[in-house]
């Protein structure tokens, strides 16, 4: 939907730069999101447990797993059956934005069809796979170690190593600081905006404030001079504004 709005929005000549930029940005975001989730799922859930704590991990109580499962289910239904959800959302959107809902109607029906086709494809592939592997019983063996005698969990890819090639071109703009020592390699995320922009600005403001503090030093006569100064400035204003008496 967002892409569609962007692309249709782009057809007018003047907003084209915005459209191009945002479309590319969205695509980049999509790809980076894929990388990020692949990293998270891969490093945490898949592969061999990396330390004793991980291997002793047990599924939490039902009360904790049900809510996420429910929400995930909702997401899937919205994805697969947008017909049910999108039109009412659009009406609300129109209400808020006051504009018309535009041509978004078509997309909802089509995406439901698309979801159906995808589901059918998956079922077909699964059925094909079952048919093919019916003859042989699958064997169990260790992961192929390309000649490595005894692969240990520690050799598996860690999150920072997974992200290293991706972060190299992006550099410090990506908000991570990599520490490489002879023995270890680790990346620590820091918030570039907060660390480089907000805090220095705030320190500058505070420094300026402390410089102004002496005006409240405590001498009564100085305070009275402030009042006198206010009266004088006001009188000067009166003289200047009074010109058009």
């Amino acid at each position, binding site marked *: 939907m967002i892409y569609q709005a962007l692309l249709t929005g782009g057809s007018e000549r003047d907003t084209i730069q915005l459209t191009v930029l945002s479309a590319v940005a969205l695509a980049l975001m999509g790809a980076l999101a894929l990388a990020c989730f692949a990293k998270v799922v891969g490093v945490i859930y898949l592969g061999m447990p990396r330390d004793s704590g991980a291997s002793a991990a047990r599924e939490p109580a039902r009360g904790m797993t049900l809510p996420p499962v429910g929400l995930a289910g909702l997401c899937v239904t919205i994805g697969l059956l947008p017909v049910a959800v999108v039109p009412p959302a659009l009406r609300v959107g129109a209400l808020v934005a006051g504009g018309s809902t535009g041509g978004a109607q078509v997309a909802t029906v089509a995406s439901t069809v698309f979801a159906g086709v995808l589901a059918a494809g998956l079922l077909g592939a699964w059925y094909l796979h079952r048919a093919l592997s019916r003859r042989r019983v699958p064997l169990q063996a260790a992961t192929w170690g390309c000649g490595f005698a005894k692969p240990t969990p520690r050799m598996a890819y860690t999150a920072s190593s997974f992200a290293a090639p991706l972060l190299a071109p992006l550099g410090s703009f990506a908000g991570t600081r990599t520490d490489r020592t002879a023995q270890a390699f680790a990346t620590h995320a820091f918030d570039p905006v907060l660390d480089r922009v907000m805090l220095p600005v*705030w320190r500058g*403001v*505070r420094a*300026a*404030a*402390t410089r*102004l*503090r002496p*005006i*409240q030093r405590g001498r*009564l006569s100085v*305070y*009275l001079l*402030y*009042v006198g*100064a*206010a*009266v004088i400035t*006001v*009188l000067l*204003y*009166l003289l200047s*504004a*009074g010109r058009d*008496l």
Partner: protein
Amino acid sequence: MRLLVISALPLLVALLVLGVPAFRGRRVPVALLAAVALAHLALVTSLWLAPEPATLGGWLAVDPLGLTVLTLTSVLFLVTVTYTVGYLRREPPSSGRVFAGCLMAFLTAASVVSLAHHLAMLWVGMEATTLSVAPLVFLRRDRRSLEATWKYLVISSVGIALALLGTFFLASAQVDVPGRPLVLPDLVEHARDLHPAWLRAAFLFLLVGFGTKMGLAPMHTWKPDTYGEAPSLVSGLMAGALTSCAFLGVARVTQVVMAAGLASFAQPVLIGFGLLSLAVAAVFIIGQSDMKRLLAYSSVEHMGLLVLGLGLGGVGAYGSMLHLVNNGLSKGWMFLVTGNIVLATGSSAAAGNRGLVRTLPVSAALLVLGLFAVTGSPPFGLFMSEFTILRAAVGSGHPWIAAVILLFLAIIFVGMAGLVLGMALGEPEPGQVPVRESAWLVAGPVALAAAVLMLGVYIPGPLHEVLARAATALGGTAP
């Protein structure tokens, strides 16, 4: 007739308490105080229901502006009295008589100021509020409160003297103009043919004079000392009611100036003072380490906003009036909560107070809520009024003013949050044991908090109508 009773009743009881020897000694006649407060509030609410014609030859009359300030003062007075019940058990003042007498004298003076339509009488009332509060500021009788009282007295007296000069300027502007001298309705009616030069000078002197009483920068220097050293309930009353009366003085003269069509002359001055106050407040709130001084600077900030609202005109006037009510209630609430903290831990400095959430759960919760209220975050009323003022800024073609205001509000929010959250959260001091908070001490702030919250969500009909009429009188428009 009711107007006379409203103004005279507290004075009579005050004289009674001060004069009659039966009240000597330390015990504070709390029952009497409560009776006066309730009677006063009852009379004020009756004013809301049935309007009252002017009395004393037009010198005392009820108008939307005055009614708002009167109601605010009356409500704050009642809340402070209920708070005093709990307060006295912990820290009885050295002379109960002076304490009660001065409180009631303050109520009288504030009532006179809100009802006065004769500007000189308004000045007399204003001077009376200053003098009635001075002994209260000096309640603790130690060196620091002595210094605070002295500075408060001298600077306020100079301010008030300037206001008197302004009033005389106004009188001389009205020399050959029909209508009773210095009576507001006549002034507003014949505003156009007042002498412009004298009127301008009068406006400026009255603005500086009452500005000193309000605590506008650069005449604010007495505020942090006075609010810092006075007992919290007195600071609350001053920050809530006294500054509102001072603002009323400024509003009266703005009424006359707007009626005389000198808006283009007056508005830049108001905006200038407003922005300066915001700037000074922002600068001094950042490194602040004492809660009461922090609230004092927050009061400077809100006074700046009030004057800004007047200066921006349009819907800003309504914003100012709403902000006046909100500020009064929220300042009362915050000071009373700080009072609880001082009672429990002995100091309002941030250093001495840590992890209050554990030792003073209710007060700490109110403190944090108050932080959000005073810095103008939704859902509290201050957000509504500050938003209206910003809307006026943008509406009247000064978007850069709105930007500057937002910048200062942001700095102030960070400064205040740093201090308040530092006090509320974290590990409590080793020796501090959870304190049982008496209902009397907490009832007041909770009621005020509820009122501010309500104003943020829904403004009752009659209040809205009064505020709107006040705004139109000030040359603005209702939203």
